[in-house]
């Protein structure tokens, strides 16, 4: 158990430390790097409690895709300059909304931590049978696609909708942009591509509409 304890404390201290560094570090890019470190250490904690599927999915989805896009955006926008106007200016509207959100999260945490001692009652009241011999990938699959299929599908539809919405909000069809059309290029032949024209003096021809 000693090795287990050492690894647990190592990863949890790393997780808390990097979570603190996310909000305290000066440079936004460093914050994102610490966020990634946090994701990785939480993933390792998941693996340590035996939820290896969740841990790996956390690594794949959050570290492999979401955090890359975070990093991408933070590097592209120069957030360091905008930071000034948020806190120094009088018109700051971010602090009240931030406060509301953090109070809500605190309440949620209180409920979770407070309800921890009733964990056994909740577990015994549910009619889910936990089969110890299954790997947790199999057990998640067998529950997700049977008992919770509606919620699963619903969350998928919500994600799809938000993706479509984001595309509709940001997509602008620009006029007069030359795009490559493979069909047009392939279907071009000698008859349509080569033509003979009498060019009038001093007028020229118009090529390639």
């Amino acid at each position: 158990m000693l090795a287990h304890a050492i690894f647990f404390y190592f990863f949890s201290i790393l997780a808390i430390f990097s979570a603190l560094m996310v909000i305290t570090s000066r440079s936004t890019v460093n914050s994102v790097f610490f966020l990634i470190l946090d994701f990785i250490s939480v993933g390792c904690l998941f693996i340590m409690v035996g939820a290896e599927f969740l841990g790996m999915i956390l690594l794949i989805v959050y570290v492999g895709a979401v955090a890359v896009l975070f990093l991408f955006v933070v590097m592209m926008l120069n957030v360091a300059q905008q930071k000034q106007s948020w806190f120094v200016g009088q018109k700051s509207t971010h602090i009240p909304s931030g406060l509301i959100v953090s109070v809500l999260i605190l309440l949620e945490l209180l409920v979770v931590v407070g309800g921890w001692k009733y964990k056994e009652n909740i577990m015994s009241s549910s009619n889910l049978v936990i089969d110890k011999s299954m790997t947790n990938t199999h057990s998640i699959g067998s529950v997700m696609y049977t008992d919770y299929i509606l919620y699963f599908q619903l969350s998928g539809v919500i994600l799809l909708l938000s993706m479509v919405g984001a595309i509709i909000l940001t997509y602008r069809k620009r006029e007069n942009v030359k795009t490559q059309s493979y069909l047009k290029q392939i279907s071009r032949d000698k008859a349509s591509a080569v033509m003979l024209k009498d060019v009038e003096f001093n007028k020229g021809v118009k090529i390639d509409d």
Partner: protein
Amino acid sequence: MDYFITLINEIYKILFLVIPILVSVAMIVWLDRRVWGLVQKRRGPNVVGPFGLFQTLADALKYIFKEIIIPASANKTIFILAPIITMTLALVAWAVIPLSETLVLSDINVGILYLFAISSLGVYGIIMGGWASNSKYPFLGAIRSAAQMVSYEVSIGIIIINVLLCVGSLNLNDIVLAQKNLWYVIPLFPMFVVFFISALAETNRPPFDLPEAEAELVAGYQTEYSGMMYAMFWLGEYANILLMCAMGSILFLGGWLPPLDIYPLNIVPAPFWMIFKILFLFFLFAIIKAIVPRYRYDQLMRLGWKVFLPFSLIYVVLTASFLLYFDKLPKGSF
């Protein structure tokens, strides 16, 4: 005391895995350059050692003795961390690759997810190196490669789902054993092709080497690196390529299984077949590098999102319906 014995035992096993990989990376670079040269009717490296085999070792020696230059405006920590991350991630993934049924460092339940996770982390080495260099070409290269690797990961993920549907387990040994009668390259041949091309894009190999397109971006994210740090990027890149070849041979070519379970073939030891298949896939990688021109960036994105993604999604539906209709879905032991 027990812990120490286990620890030393594990370290010994890890060294026994890592050192052959590093040596084979050196050999594979030689093979790559040699094939490239022969396709172009050149000789390739043939001076140092027999057939030029020690060329890469000589190169590595040269890199070790070169000065490491860190640009004045670079973010020092991240700049140094980037090549280390690239190389570590490339080596760490080998822990789960089975060379035979027993010859594997850790035979974990979610082997294929682990491989996928590690290969998707590979983008950080590049993006950190590009950003920390604080220079325009590395940054452009890093942005390109981030977008490219994220896009092609999606299709690789869906291809893995195809294989998993047929296997019913995430364990790499189970995936290999499930191909005992039929390698998945036969029923899933289109997926093998898509996987191969996505692997090229994922490892930034030509024709998808846009992150380091020398004509536009000098050397992409590696522009500011020198000496051993550059060599580490380079080693990591080739170790990643070998890893992708190993993944391809496990998913589609039956891993360490012999092609046919008949007399002269099945007495050959299993690691030989695994290494042979990895080398075969790498040979294809090397040939592609020599014969295909580089893609344009918008074509690359189009191929990833508009061709491969819908195609592999449709193939998932087809595979699932086929398995369901003929009642061939893996029942498993659970």
